[in-house]
């Protein structure tokens, strides 16, 4: 009986196999496809980012022979840095470089080739070296962003004149300058040394980076000790009661609360109620502290849990108090894990932007902040602001700022990975 029935079973199984194999392959293929989606997105994302942003690290400069005329800069023998017409000096140098330009309108168009930053550069030069007054200096000054875009090929010269921000005449003049060897692209130092600016060629991320730095200092100074203390209490001291359960539930929930809600909290409590200054890194840091605390607490608790109980028992057996056990034995052993969690939390804080919008860090701020109460912005916010600007040159800088931000994040995560690898213990 078994044999005859076994035969039919076998036949039935065999009959279904091809269909089932096809399904299996299909399923596997869909899985592979799904896995590729994320990876492909990452690839597209990074390649567009680099293609878009890498040119922002270069900047077009033009060489001008500028006459540091004494009667302009130091009328009556006194240096007059505040009111001297450095712009005029730059312009006359430009006229000299392209002598064929005449007429008010053409001249005005000509002047647009050079950045307003040229005058600042000139002023700084004179301020540092007053003895140069009266001489003629050959200087490389930044070109305007339109020229920059033209040189980098981001403006199509073939396009109809009305469709591009730079006129035929200007293109011709740039050609002349190029032929004279007066145009060169160099490393864009301004991107790293300047604050924000309305002029793309002068806009830099230093202000934003410093703002982020101040915020992170506040955040790490508060969230690391508080997070570690909370983790120690919850793991080592807390009795199992309602209060500790409540804390536990709260921490897990806070880790999943939308970050913008923390912004509302910051606005209502820190700015409105405690009257702390708007747009200040101090407030940003406080908000980010609350935001990252759950991350740090959860990671620190995991690190404490990983310390084997035998160590605690050994120390307790020698007559150490519970506090001594924790601070002499558990904490040092759990510290690498806690630091790793803190770095991860900090990298999250560095990339966060929504809550900062709420507390006014979204303002246009030119000056590089010098302290915790100065108005500041943060690197992600700078990206947000630049992404909103219509100029082509800002799009390029946005990508560059993103590359810098991702670079910082990468460094932090790398540090976390190395720390974890190096300090990893096997019990």
């Amino acid at each position, binding site marked *: 009986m078994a044999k005859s029935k076994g035969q039919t079973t076998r036949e039935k199984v065999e009959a279904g196999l091809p269909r089932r194999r096809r399904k299996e392959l299909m399923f596997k293929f869909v899985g592979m496809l799904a896995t590729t989606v994320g990876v492909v997105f990452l690839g597209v994302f990074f390649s567009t980012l680099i293609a878009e942003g890498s040119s922002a690290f270069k900047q077009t400069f033009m060489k001008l022979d500028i006459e540091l005329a004494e009667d302009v800069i130091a009328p009556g023998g006194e240096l007059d840095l505040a009111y001297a017409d450095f712009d005029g000096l730059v312009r006359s140098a430009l006229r000299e470089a392209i002598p064929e330009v005449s007429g008010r309108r053409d001249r005005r168009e000509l002047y647009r080739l050079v950045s307003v930053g040229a005058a600042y550069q000139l002023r700084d030069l004179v301020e540092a070296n007053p003895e140069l007054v009266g001489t003629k200096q050959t200087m490389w000054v930044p070109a305007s962003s339109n020229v920059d875009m033209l040189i980098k090929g981001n403006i199509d010269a073939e396009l109809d004149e009305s469709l591009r921000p730079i006129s035929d005449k200007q293109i011709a003049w740039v050609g002349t300058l190029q032929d004279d060897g007066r145009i060169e692209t160099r490393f864009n130092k301004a991107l790293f040394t300047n604050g924000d600016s309305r002029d793309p060629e002068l806009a830099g991320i230093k202000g934003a980076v410093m703002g982020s730095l101040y915020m992170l200092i506040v955040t790490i100074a508060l969230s690391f000790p508080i997070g570690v203390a909370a983790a120690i209490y919850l793991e080592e001291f807390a009795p199992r009661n309602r209060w500790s359960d409540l804390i536990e539930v709260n921490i897990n929930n806070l880790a999943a609360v939308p970050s913008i809600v923390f912004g509302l909290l910051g606005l209502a409590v820190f700015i409105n109620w405690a009257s702390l200054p708007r747009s200040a890194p101090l407030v940003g840091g406080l908000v980010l502290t609350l935001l990252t605390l759950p991350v740090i607490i959860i990671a620190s608790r995991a690190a404490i849990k990983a310390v084997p109980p035998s160590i605690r028992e050994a120390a307790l057996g020698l007559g150490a108090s519970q506090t001594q056990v924790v601070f002499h034995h558990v904490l040092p052993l759990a510290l690498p894990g806690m630091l790793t969690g803190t770095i991860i939390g900090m990298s999250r804080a560095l*990339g966060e932007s929504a809550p900062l919008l709420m507390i006014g860090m979204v303002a246009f701020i030119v000056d590089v902040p010098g302290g915790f109460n100065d108005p500041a912005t943060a690197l992600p916010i700078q990206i947000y602001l630049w992404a909103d600007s219509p100029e082509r040159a800002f799009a390029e800088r946005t990508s560059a700022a993103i590359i810098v931000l991702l670079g910082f994040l990468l460094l932090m995560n790398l540090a976390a990975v190395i720390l974890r690898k190096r300090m990893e213990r096997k019990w």
Partner: protein
Amino acid sequence: MQSTTLILLLGFMATAAFYFGRGRSLSLVGGPGHGTALHSLPGYYGYYVAIWVAIPALALLLLWVMVEPKLIVTLVVSGLPEAYRDLSPGELNLLINNIQNLASGDVVSVAVDETLQAAANQFNQYAAQSRQILAVLALGFAGLGGAIAWRRIHPDLRARNRVERVIRWFLIAASSIAIFTTVGIVLSVLFEAIRFFQKVPITEFLFGLNWSPQMAIRADQVGSSGSFGAVPLFTGTLLVTAIAMVVAVPVGLMTAIYLAEYSSARVRATAKPLLEVLAGIPTVVYGFFAALTVAPWVRQAGESVGLEVASESALAAGLVMGIMIIPLVSSLSDDAINAVPTAMRDGALGLGSTRSETMTKVILPAALPGIVGGILLAVSRAIGETMIVVMAAGLAANLTANPFEAVTTVTVQIVTLLVGDQEFDSAKTLAAFALGLMLFVVTLFLNVIGLNVVRKYREQYD
């Protein structure tokens, strides 16, 4: 004296107190050789004194800093001539602002008159006095505390226990911050939301179909009546969230399945960190990518098949948000799948199931609670996501289910209403808090359920 200087000074005093306290404890028992006669290690006596020096003074400092601004303002206002005291709260606020600006040398929005100047001078004077009093008091507290502790040092003093009790309280306080944060969130959004609902009925807010949050500056201006019907925001949020989940759930789940069941160890070792990179990209970067790359691409793709697509379509924002959430879904699904005991998998394979049959008929049904919990957390994340929609979804409060149209979301409106200088108690600003309350309640609900389901599910197989 600046408060930073004061804090530094207190820190210095506390450090000194530590050494004095330690030294005194040893000298009481007759030198370092006789430490065993003390109840605790000498260092604990040092800490004990240092705590007495630092903590009361710092507490005073904190209290002072919190109370000082309001106190000074009250004093200045009470010093103003009669005429000013009858001003409406809004006007008074403006006046105080001007006084403060004048006092700190900033730009003032009105002509400076004598009263104002006098008030500003008064303000500065009070501020200076306050700082002096604070410095004296804080240092006095520190000295007094130190003196008390110093006198209490005795070989029988249980210094270690005292110090440990203070440490314990610090730990408790630190862990309670989580609760205070939640309470703070609830209170701050709740109070402002209640104020909003006093101006705009809650029914209009919850069920109204029209959102145009303009408040009249003058009663007779055109379009003076703002309307605060939030339904278009809710539907917009849901639409973007739905698109994101349509992307993230299948892709994330299948990725988790493929990596757990089919891929070789090498592929897994490459793909998982890459997905983590995806999870680590800041949302503002996703927003930039959505607005500058994906939105135009969606628009072109739509136009090429004859569809009219808004340049800030819900689709573009939803797609990018979906990709952002893939790692979350895939890691939570991975956890859920891995929690299913190997015995299940072996049992199914032993009966002659193919891998896909094992997965779809045995493992996934078993892992379903965990996966659903994970999806709830992902939905909560999508609803609360801000930067992508702010940059890519636009501001038009359209009541539509068409993914090619522009929609706006709760988070976008919160940002729009609060960014820029706003009067704090206008209906417009308060509306943002009402939206924040909705957002908090909904995400809290999803999180609590999601976290609970996930936890229960894990316990089931532990």
